[in-house]
């Protein structure tokens, strides 16, 4: 219906990504404002097995685009067909590589307005309104679709913009997307897969991040950061310099060319705060920086700037937090 809110829901091995739960909550919030329903578009391995559970997070219905383990882009033809049929007001997509790819194909195929990545979205008097931080976060712009253009508006949403609801019990109605027209995107395949042995956390899902940069000095320098992250129940991230040096996997890189994160607490240790890193973490609610250089750029935008030796301060902080939590 014209006031429904769609959202992309990625699944891996039958489990929804954190982004799917966040966007379900966001779509439900916007659907209340628009007087419509929140409808999930699910894709990825095992999507059909657990799609109904999105009902507990706010979805009224879920349409399965595809539940095999092909690359996300291979589900684009089904996404185009489902979105064309749905006639909704807006579609929320995660601002991740897969989310952007599917959003881009929808925009290009259906001539839809595009927004984002946004840090807030709402429906005001039946019209979508989004907020975006631009110019290194110094300016916030509000945007709307031009009157009379095609719908749905496609909205790329930053991680942690919406908070998944807790304790819901609903079950969503599940159906299959109509068969898409013959499309080149169906020809994209995974030719080889090289998973790492070690488990790598999804940084976008972390609410506390302890990030290390060049100042950490090497792979073993991340040890104290891991201890602090563990004490805070958080995850370890890195600047591009640390990932390029091979000290940490690229999956943990924060910044323009890595993950864009929005944790409630970000602690940067030995990170100078170059513009490229800043755009990946500037929407964190609280920023603490620990750096030996009193003039490091990160000192200009951190909420708390601690000048000193990270190798002494980080372990001392870990001890202090453990002591206070009685651990």
């Amino acid at each position, binding site marked *: 219906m014209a006031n429904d809110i769609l959202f992309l829901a990625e699944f891996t091995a039958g489990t929804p990504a954190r982004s799917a739960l966040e966007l379900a909550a966001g779509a439900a919030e916007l659907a209340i404002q628009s007087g419509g329903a929140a409808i999930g578009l699910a894709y990825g391995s095992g999507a059909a097995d657990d799609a109904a559970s999105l009902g507990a997070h706010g979805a009224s219905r879920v349409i399965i685009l595809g539940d095999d383990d092909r690359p996300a*882009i291979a589900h684009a033809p089904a996404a*185009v067909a489902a979105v064309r049929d749905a006639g909704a007001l807006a579609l929320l997509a995660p601002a991740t*590589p897969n989310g*952007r*790819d599917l*959003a*881009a*194909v929808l*925009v*290009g*195929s259906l*001539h*839809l*307005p*595009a927004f*984002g990545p946004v840090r807030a979205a709402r429906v005001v008097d039946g019209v979508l309104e989004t907020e975006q931080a631009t*110019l290194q976060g110094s*300016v*916030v*712009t*509000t*945007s*709307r679709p*031009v009157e009379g253009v095609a719908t749905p508006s496609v909205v*790329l949403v930053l991680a942690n913009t919406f908070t998944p609801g807790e304790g819901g019990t609903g079950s969503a109605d599940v159906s299959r997307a109509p068969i898409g027209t013959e499309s*080149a*995107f169906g*020809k*994209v*395949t995974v*030719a080889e*897969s*090289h*998973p*790492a042995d*070690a*488990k790598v956390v999804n940084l976008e899902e972390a609410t506390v991040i302890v990030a290390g940069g060049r100042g950490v000095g090497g792979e073993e320098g991340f040890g104290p950061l891991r201890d602090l992250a563990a004490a*805070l129940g958080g995850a370890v991230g890195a600047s*591009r310099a640390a990932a390029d040096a091979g000290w940490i*996997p*690229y*999956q943990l890189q924060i910044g323009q*060319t890595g993950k864009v994160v929005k944790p409630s*607490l970000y602690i940067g240790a030995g990170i100078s705060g170059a*513009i490229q890193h800043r*755009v990946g973490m500037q929407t964190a609610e*609280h920023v*603490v920086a620990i750096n030996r250089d*009193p003039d490091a750029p990160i000192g*200009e935008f*951190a*909420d*708390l*700037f*601690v*000048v*000193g*030796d990270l190798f002494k301060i980080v372990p001392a*902080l870990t001890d*202090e937090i453990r002591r206070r939590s009685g651990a």
Partner: protein
Amino acid sequence: MKIVVCIKQVPATGADKRYTDDLRLDRNGVEAIINPLDEYAIEQALRLLDDGSVESVTYLSMGPEQAAEALRRALAMGGDEAVLVTDSALAGADEWATARVLAAALDKLAPDVALTGMASDDARGSLVPGAVAAMRNVPLLSYGSELKVADGEARVRRLSATGFDWIAAPLPVVASVTDQVGEPRYASLKGIMAAKRKPLETWSLADLGLAGEDLAGGALTHVTDARAQEAKPPTERIENLSAVEAAAKIADWLAARKLI
């Protein structure tokens, strides 16, 4: 085998940027450069040219006449020729209009691979490559840390949840690469001299058969408000304390905000 690298001219990173009264990005008097992430696409294309995987590299850009400077800079790094699509009707073009123009130009150039950077410095949606692929109905191989072309197929190495995958599709494709492909080469003096003699064509919308379309005027979104970010309280500093004292102060600060 032919690659077309799509590049964009953008205001220099860190330049003093602002919005005009009509809520567009003010580009007057701001130094313009090749979008830094596009330089990795140029580097990837030139590596494929160096190792004989492709026979030619063409650069394509849409922008004002000054964007020819960016194309000359790219030609100075290497490659064969360049095309600039410029038209007064394109000022203020959004993602869809940009993709429409690039798709029409690519239809005319008919490359095996249309290659882009992973994002542009001045618009962070990264939607143009996928929209171009959709309009041309060719496969999209995105966010590659390496691109290979052989036997009628293109492949990109792409980060997966824990490791990496090689994602493949039959040619022709649209592909995008990240800053992990390797550092872009510098233009040599010889390269800069040679670039002056390389062909650089300028196409208008009429040359692409798009003259009748209202591209920029048909923008689908508009900015209704631009305001300075709410002023944050000034940074609090902790200096000249022992590690234990500093740690206690940080913990107090975190506790006051209910973060521990």
